[in-house]
């Protein structure tokens, strides 16, 4: 009380706005939040360490040249053979068939949503597409195996019980929402003035869509394509269920095939002894899978940033 200057008429001193001291509670909270953020960093580090260590051991047993140049994949046979090419070809074939469906139809759906649909229709369709994206892949696998493969058979495509075609096509439909959602975001970011200008010059809706909007949104569309490819490469359950487990090099989609993911799934579900060569193959194939998808994810993220920079 005594310290306070209450003299009437005295000029008030400058008010101190700075805090008296460091607020340790605030510092602690910030540290705690940063620790939460570190969990995701630790996850990535964990994935890299988990994959690298057994892979290094694997490649000290199996030459890396044989791994990539060998055309016979039979790690559980005696004598074993570790040529990864059948898995790469299998992965490639499934991805190609999935993309044949997902890329054109995903783009078409995006153009429809962005350029043709009325706002009400669009508001209803977008969450509905999300539902499609939320169906578990084990369910799509069941559908491919027990409905789509027999359907193809009835249509005269002589497919085996397990085949690449059915798995790839069903996966393609599953990926339509992925492509549509990112592409549509990119198209919505294209300024309205570009469309108005083209319409003023007499362009039809088709021309505006294909010559103005799609070229202007191309980095976002490519980003969605790259992400779809990455997801097709990484998808496990549909191929595990519907494409079978035969690691072979073939371009005939009516034949069964094994992908990298399906191999990991099929081998990992048993109780594989730690340190055995089968155990290490899981990690070597996993590393190959991670590297491929990582490269595509980063490319896709960069492309998305590009269109955001241009128009936002």
């Amino acid at each position: 009380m005594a310290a306070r200057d209450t003299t009437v008429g005295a000029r008030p001193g400058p008010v101190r706005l700075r805090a008296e001291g460091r607020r340790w509670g605030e510092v602690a909270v910030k540290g705690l939040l940063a620790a939460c953020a570190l969990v995701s960093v630790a996850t990535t580090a964990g994935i890299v360490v988990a994959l690298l260590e057994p892979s290094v051991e694997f490649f000290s047993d199996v030459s890396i040249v044989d791994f990539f140049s060998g055309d016979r994949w039979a790690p559980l046979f005696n004598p074993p053979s570790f040529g990864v090419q059948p898995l790469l070809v299998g992965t490639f074939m499934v991805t190609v068939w999935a993309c044949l469906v997902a890329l054109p139809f995903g783009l078409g759906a995006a153009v429809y949503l962005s350029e043709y649909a009325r706002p009400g229709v669009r508001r209803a369709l977008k969450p509905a597409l999300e539902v499609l994206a939320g169906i578990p892949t084990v369910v799509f696998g069941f559908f491919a195996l027990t409905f789509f493969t027999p359907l193809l058979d009835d249509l005269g495509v002589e497919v085996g019980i397990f085949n690449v075609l059915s798995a790839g096509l069903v996966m393609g439909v599953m990926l339509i929402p992925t492509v549509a959602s990112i592409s549509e975001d990119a198209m919505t970011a294209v300024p309205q003035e570009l469309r108005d200008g083209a319409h003023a010059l007499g362009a039809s809706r088709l021309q505006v869509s294909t010559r103005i909007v799609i070229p202007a949104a191309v980095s976002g569309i490519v980003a969605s394509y790259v992400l779809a490819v990455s997801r097709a490469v990484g998808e496990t359950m549909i191929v595990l269920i519907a494409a079978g487990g035969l690691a072979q090099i073939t371009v005939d989609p009516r034949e069964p095939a094994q992908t990298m993911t399906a191999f990991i799934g099929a081998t990992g579900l048993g109780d594989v002894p730690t340190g055995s060569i089968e155990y290490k193959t899981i990690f070597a194939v996993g590393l190959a899978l991670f590297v491929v998808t990582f490269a595509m994810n980063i490319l896709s993220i960069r492309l998305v940033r590009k269109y955001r920079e241009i128009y936002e």
Partner: protein
Amino acid sequence: MSVARAPAVIGRRPRRDKVRGALFYGLLLVSVSIGFVLLGTLIVDVLRKGIGYLDPLLLTEPTSTDPDKAGAGPAILGTIYMMLILLVAVVPLGVGTAIYLEEYANRERWYNRLLELNIQNLAAVPSIVYGILGLAFLVRGLGLGRVLLAGALILTLLVLPTVIVASREAIRAVPDSIRQGAYALGATQWQVVARQVLPAAIPGIATGSILALARAIGETAPLLLVGALTYVAVNPTLLGSFTALPVQIYQWISRPQDEFRLLAAAAIIVLLAILLTMNAFAIWLRNRYQKRW
């Protein structure tokens, strides 16, 4: 001298253009409907196949070699337990990370930009790779074994990026004027976040978290690697062997007998019913509580 050309007709398009436009529009309609046609066919097909096996036994009994006695009781419980652990683990971690990135992190710093890139990449890492992580660190490294907790923790890491992204969007949607108003009244940064920003962002965070949970309980591949594909006759415990509904479905699909396929269809109906309920609840939550600023 050039020959006079017919004057252009203004306001009318050549017939060819009209046909092209109509064709293009047709293609777009096909593109947008193909997914729904498949979804509809899938649901009808699964209902047709599974309805005969959809009975109380399915919900309570453990699996068996006799399809008429087999059920998914322990699997459903396993899924529910994992969902509870997930909820407790993933929401605080995800929301904490989102708050850090949106409210505290200085984006000029390289490590914060790297953190964002890292999260975006994690969101697209194949789920089976998370399974490998679980196999290496939780099952073998920590020596947890093939237990429910390992499965739940792996699913936590798997959907963490989804929760972070959804929470960030919800936090970003809170207008800055609210933060500045609170600061002007003398609130500290944490007071602003905890008393103003978070309460306003809760509907968005809840919606995103429920959708992420729905995604997690449909996951099969990572659980295969942490050993969910086992015969479990008793109800699961935290540190005991376990199975989950999608894994049980996979196991039944891979049996050769047709009866087990039908049983799988019945279990798929249960799984889809759970997921659709969660989705519907999330959408209702968003529509009911989301504020427009």
